[in-house]
């Protein structure tokens, strides 16, 4: 019975994990850049939600929209002004650039908000439900459902809208897309903004679930990365599936080995997975 509880806990994490990975996966797939700022963007979204709740009493679930817009706009500017200059260069160059930017933002946040761990403590929590002996914290369940909605919204945006089709076209063949009249630099800016907005929106949801500080950025980045590899890079359904897989791995792994080994357990699974299925759950072979 206790195992059902662990499975439920894992599923409750899964939606949130899906949303933190979807943005990273999108940017990785389209721009061929792993954005090392992804973790700090999540933390930024969490701070927006935290201060909006503390100062204005806005529920963190509502902060998803302003946090997404705010961080998305900053990210758009960053991509257009800075990152687009080196976007076609080697991995070493793009990774080092996003790492340098990450250092700046991280240091700025440490100075502005200190390294203290924070978390939104709701004054009127939804409480817990008891489903057949399994305890479900309702705020966490709501956060995970909302996160999943965001992930599905991204998927629909890519599938159905003009801008989404343009993003996919650039992903498949940048030169051909450019010949079809798509402004590739603009699409890069928009894609990066969407990825960042999703990260910040996920961060707002996370502010209710996990403690956060500028120091937790790498833990979020690494989770997102592991999910991308598990699910297959660039695939949004893959990110969703990978999110639930990682949620279950962490929940069961924590039960078996203790919370201090969470990353080690996930990493062990990742290594085993790379040996058995290097293209990811829903990915195609041969990605870089």
């Amino acid at each position, binding site marked *: 019975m206790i195992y059902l509880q662990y499975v439920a806990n894992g599923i409750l994490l899964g939606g949130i994990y899906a949303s933190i990975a979807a943005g990273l996966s999108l940017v990785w797939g389209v721009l061929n*850049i792993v954005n090392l700022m992804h973790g700090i963007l999540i933390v930024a979204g969490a701070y927006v939600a935290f201060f909006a709740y503390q100062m204005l009493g806005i529920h963190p679930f509502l902060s998803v929209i302003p946090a997404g817009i705010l961080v998305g706009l900053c990210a758009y500017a960053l991509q257009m002004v800075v990152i687009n200059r080196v976007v076609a260069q080697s991995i*070493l160059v793009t*990774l080092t650039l996003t790492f340098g930017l*990450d250092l*700046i933002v991280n240091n700025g946040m440490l*100075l502005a908000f200190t390294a203290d761990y924070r978390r939104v403590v709701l004054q009127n929590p939804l409480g817990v439900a008891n489903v057949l002996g399994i305890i479900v914290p309702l705020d966490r369940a709501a956060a995970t459902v909302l996160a999943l909605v965001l992930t599905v919204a991204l998927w629909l945006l890519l599938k159905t809208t003009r801008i989404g089709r343009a993003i996919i076209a650039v992903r498949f063949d940048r030169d051909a897309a450019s010949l079809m009249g798509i402004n590739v630099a603009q699409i890069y800016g928009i894609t990066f903004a969407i990825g960042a907005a999703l990260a910040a929106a996920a961060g707002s949801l996370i502010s209710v679930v996990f403690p956060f500080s500028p120091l937790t950025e790498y833990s979020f980045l690494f989770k997102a990365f592991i999910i991308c590899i598990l699910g297959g890079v660039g695939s949004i359904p893959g990110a969703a599936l990978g999110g639930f897989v990682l949620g279950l791995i962490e929940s069961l792994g924590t039960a078996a080995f*203790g919370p201090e080994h969470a990353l080690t357990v996930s990493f062990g699974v990742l290594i085993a997975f790379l*040996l058995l299925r290097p293209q990811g759950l829903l990915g195609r072979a041969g*990605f870089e």
Partner: protein
Amino acid sequence: MTALPATATRAAAVAFGFAILAAIAIGGDNYVLRLATTAAMYCALAYAWNFIGGFAGYPLFGIAAFFGLGAYGGALAQTNAVPLPLPWLAGFALAFVFALLLGVVILRLRGHAFAIITLVIAEVLSEITNSWTTLTGGGSGINIPFPHLGTHGIALLFFAAMAANALLALLVTALVNRSRIGFALHCLRQNEHAASSVGVDTAHYKNLAFALSAGFAGSTGAIYASWIGYIGPTDVFDILLSIKPIVMVMIGGVATIFGPLFGALAFLALDELVWRNFLEAHSGVLGFIIVLLILFLPRGIAAFDWRARLKARFA
């Protein structure tokens, strides 16, 4: 082999420069010695990174994993009364073997996936060190006893060790560059598929390059542990330790013999300036410098054509 005389002249110039710097360091006070030891450490790390990151073209973003592994290996050997310099060799061996085993799995990845997984490995090792308190002391770290040589004697000893380590890394780099291994790595950096289809055993050579990178990072970590006298998981697995060697090699020139040396020295100058002037914001300022370097000198200072620029300006 027409390039040989130029390389030889350069090597002589570098050796001469080294000798002068070493003489200044040995004659200097403890601050100068500390700076010189740091310079040697940065050089060694830059050379270590250059094997897999430069010659093989695999973007290693987690050299701190091997630095930390070597530091802990060396520190544990030393606290168990293994005499110097054996703990330093142990640091090399431990990281070398660990990378050989790890390489079998993760060198199947390329590009971003390889880069980030190495970043994750450093974090995983830090997590394991933190929780394995019976062996590593956990978060409170390990204190390493200093040899009984007096303050200045100790400073001299560790400078000599770091400098020898860096020199060894340079020599191995030069040897690798001139041998079959260097040629194979050069091919595999250009096009791995093509290299393996003409019969280059790419898996073998990139594993070797990865292990060499890890080994030298490990020996550097072990010497660092004895030098500083205290290590903890947050400082030896620090993500900044992974990024600094990359920036150094990028400044000096990727996959070159002397690039890492100049890059490390240039970076140390920047690093000292930043630390002195911006204690609170040093990582942000460092980030700013990294961004500027990438935007304006993406191929390094070595590739910047000063003469052409000057001619264009004054012609």
